[in-house]
């Protein structure tokens, strides 16, 4: 515990740019001394406890182009400053049901009223839900910097705990999530000490059925490594198989065997692995069940 045990943030200069170009210019100007402020639900506690500090905060709240959900040719585009609450309510976003399902696990509604999709993705907490959803669905991100915009897939975005591919002078502007067609089912499950807590271990899953055969699988885990984990091998086993032929516990065990999760006061690495072993079958079964009734 630091000697001051603070709960009030250290001083900073506050900027509220009106457009993305201005925001990026500020980030360029101040480099490591600057930090983007989105919903603040993760950043502000860190600042208050003085676990992090920055001389400049660049608040994105006035940049309208960063808000809103639109449907665009087989995927949805979610502006980074869309709040989690609005994302869950959005009719456009309902085309990617995994987003709303994941949202209900995030904290509490007071947090979701301020927290943003972009903020959660950029913060990249290993136990967060949205990064796993993005990874599972092969989402792609629009990142804007001084030299313009680039698009990168989720698989290249999450690097490590609180570390992403966003450069210090860039802003995550939006995330694109592909829309699945056909008979689909979705599930999110996590093991947490209490409602809304950081997950000790979690899994997200999407299943597309063609009759009794699985035509598409998306499976990712969170809380089990420094970044979300895509269960490619398990997906290969599931995709193409007949639903009744699946040995879900086996698949769960196989996924767990690939993991080497960290431990902390709430659960050991081994225990997280065991949780994964039960969560994987759980989300597969739930998604399959939902797809069957779709």
């Amino acid at each position, binding site marked *: *515990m*630091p*000697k*001051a*045990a*603070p*709960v*009030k*943030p*250290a*001083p900073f200069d506050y900027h509220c740019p009106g457009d993305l170009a201005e925001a990026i210019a500020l980030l360029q100007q101040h480099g490591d001394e600057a930090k983007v402020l989105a919903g603040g639900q993760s950043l502000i*506690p860190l600042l208050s*406890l*003085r676990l992090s500090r920055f001389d400049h905060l660049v608040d994105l709240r006035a940049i309208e182009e960063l808000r809103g959900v639109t449907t665009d040719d087989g995927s949805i585009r979610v502006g980074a400053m869309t709040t989690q609450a609005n994302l869950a309510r959005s009719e456009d976003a309902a085309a990617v049901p995994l987003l709303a399902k994941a949202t209900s696990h995030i904290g509490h509604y007071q947090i979701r009223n301020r927290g943003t999709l972009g903020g959660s993705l950029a913060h990249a907490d290993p136990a967060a839900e949205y990064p796993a959803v993005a990874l599972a669905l092969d989402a792609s991100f629009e990142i804007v910097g001084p030299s313009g915009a680039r698009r990168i897939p989720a698989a290249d975005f999450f690097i490590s705990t609180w570390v992403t591919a966003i450069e210090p002078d860039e802003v995550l502007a939006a995330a694109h999530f592909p829309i699945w067609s056909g008979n689909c089912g979705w599930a999110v499950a996590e*093991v947490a*000490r*209490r*409602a*809304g*807590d*950081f997950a*000790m271990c979690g899994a997200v899953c999407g299943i597309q059925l063609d009759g009794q055969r699985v035509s598409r699988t998306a499976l990712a885990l969170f809380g089990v490594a420094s970044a979300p984990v895509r269960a490619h091998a398990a997906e290969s086993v599931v995709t193409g198989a007949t639903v009744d032929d699946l040995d879900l*516990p086996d698949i*769960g065990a196989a996924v767990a065997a690939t993991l080497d999760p960290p431990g902390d*006061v*709430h*659960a*050991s690495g081994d*225990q997280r692995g*065991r*949780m994964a*072993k*039960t969560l994987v*079958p*759980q989300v597969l079964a739930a998604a399959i069940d939902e797809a069957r009734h779709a």
Partner: protein
Amino acid sequence: MTAGRFMGQAIARSEDPRLLTGRGRFIADVVVPGASDAAFLRSEVARGRITGLDVEAARSAPGVRAVYTAADLNPLVHQTSLSGMPDAPFPPKYCLAQDDVRYVGDPIAIVIAENRYLAEDAVELIELDIDVQDPVIDVDAARDGKGDLVHPEIGTNTPQVIPLFGDPDLEQAFADAADVVRDTIVMHRYVQVPMECRGIIADWDPYGEALTVWSATQSVHEVQAFLAGLLGINSNKIRVLQPDVGGGFGQKMMIGRDEWAVVLAATVFGRPVRWIEDRRENLTAASHARDERMDLAMALNGDGTVVAIRGEMIENIGAYQTMGSSGMGAFVAPFLTNAYKIPKVGFASEAVYTNTCGKAPYRGPFLIYAVGIEQLMDTAARQIGMDPLELRRRNVIRAEDLPYTLPSLQCFDAITPAETLEQAASMIDYDGFRDKQAAARDQGRYLGIGISLCVEPSAIAVGALGTEAAVVRMDYSGKVTVLLGSSSTGMSVVTTMRQVVAEHLGCAPDDVTVIQGDTAATPYSAGTGGSRSAVLCGNAVAQATIELRSKLTEIAADALEAAVEDLEVDDGRVFVRGTATKGMTFAELGQLAYVGHDLLGPGTTPGLEATHRYKAPPFTFSNACHICTGEVDVDTGLVRILRYVVSEDCGRMINPKVVEGQIFGGVVQGLGGVLYEHMVYDDDGNPLTSTFVDYLLPTAAEVPTIEVGHVESPGPNPLGVKGMGEGGAIASPAAVVNAVADALAPLGVTVSGSPLGPKQILDMIAAADGHFESTSS
């Protein structure tokens, strides 16, 4: 006992409207003009020698008005003993850490600034050099003298030792027993966590040499007494005021060294100083609780009757306690047999210092007397192949056993543990649950049921805690004001005492105002805690009200020319029984008493005021039985409580909703303690659970619906009440532990205490005999 017109009624609380509308005035809301805000420099290491401390940069930081260290404040300390405990082996009598630090959070310097933001900025500028030394964290290392001394001046790490004592035939009883059951019961470290942190405002008048203090305390008079000693000034030069307080649970019974520093700083600074504790400080540096273990053994006959019990207890009391050395052994020893007829007892205990945050009392601070035996009862039941309910039935004290004298010579006069055991078992449908449990096991689900009985030594009334006084005064307009020494922090003292007055006087509760929490206005009280308000305040108020009523009727008798015996008092009037019109209102009598006193009879004194200081017996025993059912998910280690029932006997209830509310709060604190709350230190003495992100409190989503049944056996005092504020917290830990143990028993898991978070449960399952494989579907 039937409820009275006001006693026994679930009257809505008069405290509520202000609090519901945001008009509560808590310590952080109190405005004292010209007050500065304080922040502390605290130790980041658990043990070390301070080799350098330079506050100059902090002193000249923006908005900083003063910075004080041990060099400034410690010489001002006269004494730091508690009233009634002048010679307690209390750690060294100083305020701020001087030459060394003894726990993470140890206060070293105080910065006084324009506001808390600037004060925290300035603390960061203080240069502090500490030669880190190996801390004494482990209790066993500390007590065996292998580690260094936490307090070298005291010369020992075990300031309170009760050597094994008890029945001379104890060993023989164990040797002769058909069965002996042993276990080491562990209660882990957790924390009081009132929703409001501590806070204090000190305003020193250098001209009058008088001190005014606003303190978020459970005892204004104890703060006053302590500060008189601290500063070496007369107690009647100190006024302590209690604002609204957001819970205390024992943490706020006494003020800590950081709060002393605020007061001392104010006397040097000469302007008011305010300190509002923050949550990190509250979790890591204010005070901790529990963290004790007991080697417990019971000797049983072949039929399951327990013939002897022996407990040897070790308590980790940390570095600086707020109540002397806070060893609880003296309170555990007499009640080791709890609700049972056990003729032979042996007990020993040690309180041990470590370089961790020191302890303060926490709701039922001696609760291991109940937690231990209740867990061991279940263990014994499993060992001898008897159902735990049946084992308790064979040993519980019954009505025909009363009065029952314990081996400790304490006497239970009016308790009903057997009745509560049966009521609780019926409420939860004990046999029905056993069937459900068996069916669930067939499906690979692990349900369990846990019983916990407790006889609660409430209203501890020894020494300074032994009495309570009330001044009950009717003014010239016939309205009643009660001056009470209490300092309620959510216990509904105001509402319940209005009910007592209304019942004993004959008026409406709305006609009564209760003043408390101000040393200038109220009679001495040791404070509000220890489940003492109903018994002590209640009877003091009742007796004073009865005396006032007597005065009232005496005056009315003169005015109405009637005999006192013929008068009734009701609805704010005194009238001749059987007449509708021959009476006077309280307002008219008030006028007579204060203004028209020439008309009073020769023997009648003017005025309408009565005072009574009530002395209670040393203990008033209440009792309860808790039964809890839960399901353990053996893959995740998560526990879900299914049902929770309480059958309680607190004698006559003043307000049933208040009683239930106290039970609910205590139960959830017990449940929270076992399943969620865990104050963790690493091997270097760093607290790892320093915010609410890691120190987990249960929320509305985790708690069961708590069902309460009542049994009533009157308390041995005129009101017939008993204390019960701590009972919910005392009985609950064992109920939860026992339910988990019962659920996991088929897996060969033995559970000896807490914490029982997922990590611990999964560890236990993995370690159990008969290697267990997860059978997830």
